[in-house]
């Protein structure tokens, strides 16, 4: 009788130690869901979702404070991926919010006065310049977030669409007409 008790006590102590150890050893830092959501987001850091960047939006989604249809650069594909990840239903974009064609910012260097305001606005440091020096955009790093447009006092920044090149060209979705029924009078009865 007493030995059984000791065995039970021993087992509980052992399991408790294992649980306690693993709680420390395998502690999860932060919310892993946030990382997963962040990986789906396009990282334009544009703030069009109403949050200051992709990570804050991912955090808000993880907490259930934000909808999944707020990211225009991610497109419908992005919403679908988020819906799949979170196990919720697909939700179309709201009125007026929708994806736009990808573009990069372009500085008209004749107009630029070198005020550095766009430098401070750029979320990915894709603008080169210094005070009273001409600024220019590193097109390959520009995410097309348009955050530099508003601060410019002389409106010298415009968005330029990316021309299609041989490197970025995609095969189109095959479009063809299906064969028509040979005898149109013998149609399937419609219910």
């Amino acid at each position, binding site marked *: 009788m007493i030995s059984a008790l000791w065995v039970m006590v021993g087992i509980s102590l052992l399991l408790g130690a294992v649980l306690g150890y693993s709680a420390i050893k395998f502690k999860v830092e932060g919310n892993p869901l946030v990382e997963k959501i*962040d990986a789906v*987001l*396009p*990282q*334009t*850091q544009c703030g069009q979702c109403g949050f200051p*960047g*992709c990570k804050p939006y991912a955090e808000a989604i993880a907490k259930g404070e934000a909808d999944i249809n707020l990211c225009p650069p991610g497109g419908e594909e992005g919403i679908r991926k988020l819906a799949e990840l979170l196990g919720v239903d697909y939700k179309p974009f709201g009125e007026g919010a929708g994806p736009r064609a990808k573009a990069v910012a372009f500085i008209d260097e004749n107009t630029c006065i070198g005020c550095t305001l766009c430098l401070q606005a750029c*979320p*990915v*440091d*894709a603008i080169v310049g210094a005070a009273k020096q001409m600024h220019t955009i590193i097109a390959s*790093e520009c*995410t097309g977030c348009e955050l530099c447009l508003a601060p410019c006092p002389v409106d010298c920044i415009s968005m330029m669409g990316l021309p*299609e*090149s*041989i490197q*970025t*060209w*995609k*095969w*189109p*979705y*095959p479009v*063809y*007409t*299906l*064969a*028509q029924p040979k005898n149109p009078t013998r149609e399937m009865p419609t219910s």
Partner: protein
Amino acid sequence: MRRLDHFHGGIHPDEHKLESSELPSRIAPLPPQLILSLHQHIGAGAKVQVQAGDHVLKGQLLASAQGMVSAAIHAPTSGTVTAVRPHAVPHPSQLPGLCVHIEPDGKDQWIEHAPLAYRAIPKSELLAKLREAGIVGLGGATFPTHVKYSLAPDQRIQTLVINGAECEPWITTDDRLMRERAAEIVRGIEVLRHLAAPAETLIGIEDNKPQAIAAMRAACADSDIEVVIIPTLYPSGGEKQLIKILTGKEVPSGGRPTGIGVACSNVATAFAIHRFVDYGEPLISRQMTVTGNVRTPQNIEVLIGTPLQELVRLAEPLPGVTGYILGGPMMGVDIEDLRLPVVKGSNCIIVKSAKLFPPAEPAMPCIRCTRCAAACPADLQPQELHWFSKARDFGKAQEYNLFDCIECGACAYVCPSHIPLVQYFRFAKSEIWQRERESQAAEVARERHEFRLARIEREKQEKAERLAQKEREATAAREAITLAQALAAKQAAKQAADPDFEPDNTQQMRINAAIERAKAQVAAENPKNTEVLTPQQQAEIAEIEARRAKLREAAAHPGADDEPPKHS
């Protein structure tokens, strides 16, 4: 007799080879203009080395290889570079690519060139020379040859496979080349054998080319290269398929033949290598079949960069032309514009007519008969890939090994519903590549954004620390001054109260010293920009000062220097 293996599936389309294979090949006359695309091979485009107005000689470098997977491009004849500007290039997108335009001067004057004693130089040097000579695989994929034969130190090539199968209907360039240039091809194969050091070398030729087989057998009589006759079955000329037939080995999904100890090159590549090592000629011409709805279908040796219309004109098109195919009917691309130039990978141009190439029958829904799966030489499930691609379920398509598809068109050929299956696969592949590019860009953007946030945070902290430090020093200094002034006032008061009182000099001195110290400390908080400098900055200042002194001297003695003194 060698025991042959076989690959899964395969089809027997109408061959249409006799039309063009019986005439001896001819050399195309010099065209009025040559257009050389800078992107004629898989990998990075070549970097242009000439500019408009330059006079170039035949074989002169026009664009050098940049990056590991790349190859150089040379002038196919002597002449003047008229422009370096975009021009339509043979690409399914029909988009323009950067091209070097050359107007031939008619002299066809060679740059100095000499044979290469390739056995006397290290292999790495030979590979580098092949890269500079612009040698790429001429079987169709235009993979740079020097990359294919850059083997890791632990890689051993068991079998060198030379591809003379030429399974695609209508095309007969390799057939003609083997009949006419068998000995030269073998010379090129010897170079590849030197590079790969294989235990055995096999030339695979389909049994519908008996004359080519005979010619190659005769040329290989003195060597241990074996010519293997393989049954005619499309697409036995596919690299992985031919390797399977000849060696029984399967190239793993996503792997390269060299990974399983096999290297595979086309006969035309071997011929180009022979031209380079035995004559020093870079890759500037190739054989092409012109066939279809023309009076004299034939093979033509043509300079790279020749506009396709020149070739079609040589073969005299017949009335009723409905279009053109660049490449074979199974894997080629439909083109409309004949101003496109020949590139290293072009092997055939077919002139279409309604009789030879009737318009595609209208497609019907997939009935899941799986005939495509039975025909697929890569052993895939094309019907599944079709559904996934159609539904844009690209992840699933990749799971079903979409990227093992060689786009041979066997599935679409057998499809009783006439579904353009290959178009779906090409669409899905390019969408997946696009996504790949986008996710890479997103990753870079994320890193840059995070770095920026960290930088802003760091700067904020540094600023706060600086301010706090300043504040502490200022308070300490102010306290010291008040203390000293209080002491001084006390002394003065004492002196006023008692005129005989002798101020304690030592104490007074201590007070003054304290005031000085405090003031110095206040001054140190805001150092002038000429203070606290690194040795480098000091050196810079000294240099500028020296220059100024010189300028002052020059100004003091005007006329000594004609140049006006510059402001530094």
